[in-house]
């Protein structure tokens, strides 16, 4: 018997009711040649034993909280209000299923409706879905949607400074769809080379995908990008990997982008070694029927009072099967709830304040590094950035190791991200980085870089 299972009396009672002597009889349809005697796994363990094993895993990792951390590159450490996790741990939220029965799921449904509203507000777009897995798959869904809207256009133009993980996943999904991907490099200021972009966009292009702030930190000039896409009749897609930037920067929605999508982890989700994070997806009303993933809509009940339901599901796999707009079923509902709680707490003032604090802290570091520090120098000193920038260095791994010995995780080396990146360290600052941490980083760079 086991603490998660029913007991001996339950079993005896049920066996008798079913009319069999042992449970084995119920497995009579499972052929002998596919059976297993006993699994080669450890015996069942008590809470205390399991906890011990997992603490042993945990202490072999260098947790961010034990360091002055400037790691970013798509995963950021921002404020983590205790309210968020305390609410997420309500069993009514985390042990519920997808809200297919709206009469007993109004909590989840209303929270998702609020989430969709927050995403629309942040992106200045008209409709947003109930979440996707992560930033990388959000980019894929945007490109696949563009290809559905413009099926005769097989080519996608993608900025070179798109997050390498997002690009890798796009390549995987693009292959069976026979999508041809053209990469437009960044120019000397770290921003997309507009001339090259204009040359790359032709009548065979269904989507133009640009991350801003881009992977190297610079903020793109979105207006001309949207204009270039529009002229060619292609969909313009803005990718946002650091969502708190939306508190300070005009989103693609205002510049005429067709999709604004990406990663919302920055709004209060733990780094968690890469997941679960939170993909978001916002677009124009015109593409509503082509939208991937779940949607919650407002309606009324039999007594005329307001309620919420999953809606427009004829786009989805459980109705449309092979003709669905995406194969996604389970999304990242609980993570969407977390972001909804964080955005509620921050509200009108906080969304801007957290962005301004992050930007200000990064600008402090940039100002100090403008003249260079040892062999390290700002890669794109003239480009506007939000909270992240590339520090050029010819041996970033060795430098990071020395900095770690001083209690500093200075950033992400570009040396392990696949080819093509300038050698250096991506440094990200948020409102969680103190002046003392910044000065310690600068002093250490002065000595070690």
């Amino acid at each position, binding site marked *: *018997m086991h603490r998660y299972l*029913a007991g001996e009396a339950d079993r005896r*009672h049920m066996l008798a*009711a*079913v009319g069999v002597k042992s449970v084995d009889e*119920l497995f009579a349809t*499972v052929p002998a*040649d596919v059976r297993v005697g006993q*699994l080669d*796994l450890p*015996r*069942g363990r008590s809470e205390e034993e*399991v906890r011990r094993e*997992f603490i042993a*895993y945990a202490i*072999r*990792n260098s*947790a961010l909280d034990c360091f002055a951390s400037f790691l970013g590159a*798509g*995963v950021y450490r921002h404020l983590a209000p205790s*309210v968020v996790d*305390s609410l997420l741990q*309500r*069993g009514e939220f985390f042990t519920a*299923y*997808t*809200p*297919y*029965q709206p*009469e007993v799921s109004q909590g989840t449904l209303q929270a998702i409706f*609020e989430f969709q509203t927050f995403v629309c507000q942040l992106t200045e777009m008209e409709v*947003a879905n109930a979440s996707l897995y992560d930033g990388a*798959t959000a980019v894929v869904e945007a490109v696949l949607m563009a290809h559905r809207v413009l099926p005769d256009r097989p080519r996608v133009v993608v900025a070179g400074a798109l997050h390498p993980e997002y690009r890798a996943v796009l390549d*995987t*999904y693009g*292959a069976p769809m026979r999508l041809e991907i053209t990469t437009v490099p960044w120019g000397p200021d770290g921003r997309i080379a507009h001339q090259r972009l204009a040359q790359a966009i032709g009548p065979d292009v269904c989507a133009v995908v640009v991350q801003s702030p881009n992977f190297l930190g610079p903020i793109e000039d979105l207006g001309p990008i949207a204009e270039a896409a529009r002229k060619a009749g292609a969909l313009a897609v803005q990718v946002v990997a650091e969502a708190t930037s939306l508190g300070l*920067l005009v989103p693609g929605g205002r510049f005429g982008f067709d999709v604004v999508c990406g990663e919302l982890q920055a709004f209060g989700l733990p*780094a*968690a*070694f890469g*997941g679960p994070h939170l993909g978001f997806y916002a677009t124009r009303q015109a593409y509503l029927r082509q939208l991937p993933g*779940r949607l919650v809509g407002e*309606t009324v*009940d039999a*007594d005329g009072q307001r*309620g919420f339901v999953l*809606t427009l599901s004829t786009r*989805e796999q*459980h109705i449309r099967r*092979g003709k669905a707009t995406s*194969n996604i*079923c*389970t999304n*990242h509902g609980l993570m969407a709830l977390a972001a909804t709680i964080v955005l*509620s707490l*921050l*509200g*009108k003032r906080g969304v801007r304040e957290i962005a301004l604090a992050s930007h*200000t802290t990064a600008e402090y570091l940039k100002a100090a590094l403008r003249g260079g520090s040892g062999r390290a120098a700002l890669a794109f000193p003239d480009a506007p950035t939000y909270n992240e920038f590339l520090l050029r260095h010819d041996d970033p791994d060795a430098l990071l190791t020395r900095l770690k010995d001083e209690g500093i995780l200075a950033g992400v*080396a570009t040396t392990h991200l696949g080819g093509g990146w300038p050698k250096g360290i991506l440094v990200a600052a948020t409102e969680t980085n103190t002046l003392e941490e910044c000065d310690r980083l600068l002093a250490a760079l002065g000595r070690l870089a």
Partner: protein
Amino acid sequence: MSGPRRLREREKLIFERSSVGRIGYQLPALEVPAVDPAKTLPAATLRGEIEGLPEVSEVDVVRHFTRLSRWNYSVDEGLYPLGSCTMKYNPRLNEELARLPGLAGIHPLQPEDQVQGALALLWQLEHALVEITGLARVTLQPAAGAHGELAGMLMIRRALEDRGARPRTVLIPDSAHGTNPASAVFAGFDIVEVASTAQGTLDLEALGRHLAGGDVAALMITVPNTLGVFEPEIVRAAAMLHERGAFLYMDGANLNAFVGVALPGRMGVDALHINLHKTFSTPHGGGGPGAGPVAVSEALVPYLPVPIVERTGERYTLSTGRPKSIGKVRGFYGNFGMLVRALAYIRSLGRDGLRAMAEGAVLNANYLRKGLEQHYHLAYDGPSLHEVVFDDTLQAASGVKNIDIAKRLLDYGFHPPTMSFPLIVHGALMIEPTESEGVEELDAFIAAMREIAREAKETPDLVKGAPYSTPVRRLDEVRAARQPVLRWVPKRP
């Protein structure tokens, strides 16, 4: 979901609770010198105030979401018998462990030597799943079951291309979950539906006919199938597929039925996704996050997504140098937090507990079947494993449909069964109790279902008007779709 009137009242949207000047956070004092963003950022990129964001206090937020939570049904409250969704108990220990700072607070791009514990954990989970499935290796990357299906089908596609073969057809039984055809299409295949036998199982003759056509890449099949019936000819089907150079993809949505009893590896399976949020207790979270690791046979190992964790002595590395890999299907290494919970569950149950889990799931389903088979029509009467599918045939005479029975169940305090599939059962009520339940919870459910069967005969209008006691009554889904309101907008003064 009951209580004093004020607590039963509808909760406004968070945006409607807004009151000027309230905040729900405080940032640390900014010690670095202030900057004027108008000087550091181009004017065209600088945003003003965002219209419509709420202004609420921390107390407002706690009350708002606590009230919302009360409108949800959950496994913590009781039986959640959604067939094929496997709503089992979510152990609290797993929640605690996933939140350890050394597991929740690590960055995916830290150097390998800083995350040896995380890599060890991933390696341990992969090898536990290898043992449980009897397959060669496992990718932990996919974020959910459907995502795993896509990863598996992409591997099959790449393996076929490697042989110079380009078959386009994927066969899918008509009893399948909707994600199967969608995932196959997104992997670049055409789908052909295979009609089931009169027993609701795979039709070997039909399979043979399709294979003779010569264009078959794979069969995607759920075992036990969505009727809760074990596919008796699965081994033969695998042999027929392999003979023709095709692959067998197993949808592991129903793996809970036979963990520790049988091995997919011995069935001839080439790829199998495992919904960790079904079989291995990671919480559904009101619609995710899930996790959909894919176990593969030796034939597909070269095509696994990158990276995978390798162990040399006591050192763990992320291996990316795999030239035949399909690449990446999502960012980083998977939903790590869910992987932590799944391994904790496997450790807690152990080898005997895992088998007892499958046995409990099957016994509970059979007990429900026994308790209800005099009152509801069994769509197919083959032996049930972990779930049983009734339909509304006996109630149809009085005009009561499966949806009405489901809504009436809400009044009795239970979440309804699955109704949207299998498509081969009209008016389906697909019931999966899982192993988490004891006799009294199952008896209460049986009693409620019997009572509804009686009501359907004697007072059908009562059933058709249900529910009556839920926070909202039956909702107008047609209106939601015809006049979509998908976000809140500020009221103009």
